[in-house]
């Protein structure tokens, strides 16, 4: 790990963020940031570099790392299941638009905080399904499979992730029989 950090000094940026980041006890209280830059294409065909974030509606409640260490190994999964069962959880999809010259090819470099943001939608989570019997089990999450109007940028990471995920998907599906659906799941 030390060798890796020495060879990739930009890794220190993540480590310092991870130490200072607010810790919470719930997936529903977290921000999810794309880090990677994508291009949004407007009606005239012009491409705008953006990064997206899912911003939680739930108020984050800070929990110290020491308190978190005392909870069970799957407490985040259990907490989100109970929380969603009690009521849908929401996130706003917020798009941050780059200014000319903002670094788009390096997801490690943050953009200044004053960039224009646009709220483009709301994610509502109404149900939590276990992975084993869920509909996402046998598909590949490929960050380069994008709807019309969204394209990859000069950020090289989505391409690298796509190539690596494709390979892991091939290996994963080849071993599907070792991870069968449960009897109740199969009946669905």
């Amino acid at each position: 790990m030390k060798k890796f950090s020495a060879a990739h000094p930009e890794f220190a940026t993540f480590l310092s963020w991870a130490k200072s980041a607010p810790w919470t006890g719930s997936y529903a209280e977290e921000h999810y940031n794309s880090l990677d830059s994508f291009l949004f294409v407007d009606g005239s065909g012009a491409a705008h570099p953006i990064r997206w974030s899912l911003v939680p509606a739930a108020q984050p409640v800070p929990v110290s790392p020491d308190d978190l260490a005392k909870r069970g190994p799957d407490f985040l999964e259990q907490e989100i299941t109970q929380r969603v069962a009690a009521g849908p959880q929401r996130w706003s999809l917020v798009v941050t638009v780059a200014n000319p010259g903002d670094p788009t090819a390096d997801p490690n470099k943050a953009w200044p905080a004053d960039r224009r943001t646009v709220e483009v939608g709301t994610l509502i989570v109404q149900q939590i399904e276990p992975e084993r019997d869920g509909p996402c089990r046998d598909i590949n999450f490929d960050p380069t499979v994008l709807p019309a109007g969204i394209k990859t940028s000069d950020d090289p990471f989505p391409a690298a992730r796509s190539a690596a995920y494709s390979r892991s998907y091939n290996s994963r599906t080849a071993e599907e029989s070792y991870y069968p659906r449960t009897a109740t799941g199969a009946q669905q």
Partner: protein
Amino acid sequence: MTRKRFAAPQRLLHWLMAVCILAMLFIGVGMVSTVTPKYLTLVQIHKPLGIAILVLVLIRLVLRLIYGSPALPADLPAPIKLGAYLSQYAFYALMFAMPLIGWGMLSAASYPVVLFGSVHLPSILPLSPSLHTLLWHAHFYLAFAFFALILLHVAAILFHALVRRDGVFQTMAPFLSRDETK
């Protein structure tokens, strides 16, 4: 009178598809060997080019049924004749099978089959990890078999053109050699 050469559209399709298929084999090997942004470019070429080959081989089969093929030299030994016929069946089988297997493989993984931009082809198989695995392996191994068949084909045609000099190469040659134009 039997024709001495394949019809001009047959020859055009043969050489056009030869370029496409060779490109496809190298693009295929290249794209599974890189994690650079070239990966996306190669995948974006691989899918529509595969479908283009499927369309071209359909046209080619129809032309073959209409025009037939020039007879092989009468003095060609029977085992070599058999080999020539079998290799043609193998080529047609692979030219049809490879794009269909690729299309089916993407369908079984629920990937979008993107031709260009937002033009997608429909899924031809249900989501199925076991089908995906089967088709992925078929696509992978048949690609190497295809390359081996091409090498065999090139070796055979060099044998006809340089050793036997029996006019078989000229039936598919893109241009007429001087001997024939006399």
